[in-house]
């Protein structure tokens, strides 16, 4: 009986204001805390990688130190305060996440616009390159590139941007492709507008929103990838704190000092989940049909 049960024609329903659900607020709070920590933490508690303090090594969370201060999250195997290490690591995570998404997003935006709007051979080439790259496990690719480039923050950003641009390019390409055939683009062509004008004035504006949604989702994934590389010793150099490197350093002490590996892991999980929640909320705001 689908003739009858079919959805009734468009309802004259009032445009309802969409509000952020509670979990999005939780996500926003976590992310806000993280950004704040990354920006302010190292200012308040400067991280010194060589400031070892062997008498106070491997202290559990909450221990009182010799100078009367409290190591809320304990100390590591060379006596550095875990909280300070985490705060320093958060800055690296944020930096790498943001820089990678910016760089990858910019490359993806241009590539996606070109291949979506013009189509033809440019699209064919870019899409096939993307397919090949996506078919290859991105962490393997990252390990390969990072191994060649050597460990440094810049190299991590380059490595991760190279593995991520495809995702942005696909999102932008899809929007550009959909917008290209809309009637108002035809209408601009009838005026005599050139490709550049149509791209910038008519196609680009409709690509921002999906790009932004993709970026929020990717930031979390990039932070995990950075931690993985650092865990493997291919990411952030040892003189800088990184959550991934700290987890790796704590591996040998899992039995005696669980907090060294656990604290950064919890921090990473919390932030990535928070970013994910925010990303989901963004996506739902952008496209209410995707909520299911």
């Amino acid at each position: 009986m689908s003739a009858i049960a079919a959805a009734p024609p468009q309802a004259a329903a009032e445009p309802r204001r969409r509000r952020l659900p509670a979990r999005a607020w939780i996500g926003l709070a976590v992310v806000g805390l993280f950004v704040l920590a990354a920006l302010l933490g190292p200012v308040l508690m400067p991280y010194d990688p060589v400031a070892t303090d062997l008498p106070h090594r491997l202290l559990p969370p909450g221990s009182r130190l010799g100078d009367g201060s409290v190591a809320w999250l304990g100390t590591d195997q060379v006596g550095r305060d875990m909280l300070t290490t985490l705060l320093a690591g958060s800055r690296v995570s944020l930096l790498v996440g943001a820089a990678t998404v910016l760089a990858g997003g910019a490359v993806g935006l241009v590539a996606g616009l070109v291949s979506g709007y013009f189509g033809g051979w440019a699209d064919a080439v870019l899409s096939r390159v993307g397919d090949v790259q996506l078919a290859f496990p991105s962490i393997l690719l990252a390990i390969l590139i990072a191994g060649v480039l050597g460990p440094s923050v810049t190299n991590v950003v380059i490595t991760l941007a190279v593995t991520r641009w495809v995702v942005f390019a696909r999102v932008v390409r899809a929007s550009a492709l959909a917008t290209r055939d809309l009637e108002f683009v035809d209408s601009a062509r009838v005026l005599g507008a050139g490709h550049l004008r149509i791209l910038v004035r008519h196609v680009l504006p409709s690509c921002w929103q999906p790009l932004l949604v993709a970026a929020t989702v990717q930031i979390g994934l990039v932070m995990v990838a950075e931690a993985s590389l650092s865990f493997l010793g291919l990411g952030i150099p040892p003189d800088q704190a990184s959550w991934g490197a700290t987890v790796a350093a704590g591996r040998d002490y899992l039995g005696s000092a669980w907090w060294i590996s656990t604290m950064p892991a919890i921090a990473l999980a919390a932030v990535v989940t928070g970013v994910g929640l925010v990303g989901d909320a963004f996506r739902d705001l952008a496209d209410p049909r995707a909520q299911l």
Partner: protein
Amino acid sequence: MTATAHDTAAPAGDAEVVLRAAGLEAGYQRPGRHGFGRRRVPVVAGLDLTVRAGRTVGVVGESGCGKSTLARAIVGLIPAFAGTIEFAGTDLASLPRRRRRRVARDVQMVFQDPYTSLNPRMTVAAVIAEGWRVHPGIVPRDREDAEVARLLDLVGLRPEHAARRLHELSGGQCQRVAIARALALRPRLIVCDEAVSALDMSVRAQILNLLADLQAELGVAYLFISHDLDVVRHIADEVAVMYLGTVVEQGTAEQVFGDPRHPYTRALLSAVPSVRDRPDDAAREIVLEGEVPSPAAPPSGCRFRTRCFMAAERCARDVPELIVREGTAHPVACHFADADTGTDTDAGTASSAR
């Protein structure tokens, strides 16, 4: 008033020719066999059409007849496969892309749905002024606001509409903006592709009157494409009836609607519901069987023969040319155009009796 022009039935030939399409072939491209190369599917095949300055040529036909393809080829949205589109002495079809864009300001278009054919992110003023960005020199920058206000007034909107966004306007108001946008380039020809079809009936009449007034005031020519025969009969001086990519009948509005000679025109006219119809007399109309064949594989000979109630053997063999035939006053592409019109329809007789 130019709007009354079709009453005078002036001999075509006094006004200057703005647009002349000859042997026009246009359509879409498909990937060829085995995915190699491209195969052209002409939706418009061998079409001739002339539009004169300050006059309105109506094009009627059903979906798939190629009327929208014709519109898109004339404004340059799709390339012509063959034939010429002569505009003010230059053949647009053979112009390189860049030069073609410059000619664009003389040939503008109003689309069916203003909500999709105008960028919803722009203000009314930006929509109207966009053409001046593309073709600098039409209006000096410091005069733009005044010119936007003048255009808004011309199409029956108020200056304060300039700052609005399109979603704040009604469909009819948006279509007025679309008309102002087209007029901003001071074109000589405006292609109206189903320009009033999406509007509510009470608003439709307002826009039709506006188009007539603008023509009287500015002398702009219209190529008015519509599936709505009543609207075309009202606004057009000359009418071309299209079927499956070709013009099957052409003449003044009076000739085509008052004395239709092609069987398709006659069927079309009788199929249009009129307020004078009544449930019991529906049987008098000519109902065409079947539906329009695919333009990719048109029938041999006369393209209409597969649905024609007059088709004979000859129709499968010979392609009927669009010429003035014995017993007709206007060009008809039918071997039997002079045949007895005794089976004439309610709609046909009703309008010829006026």
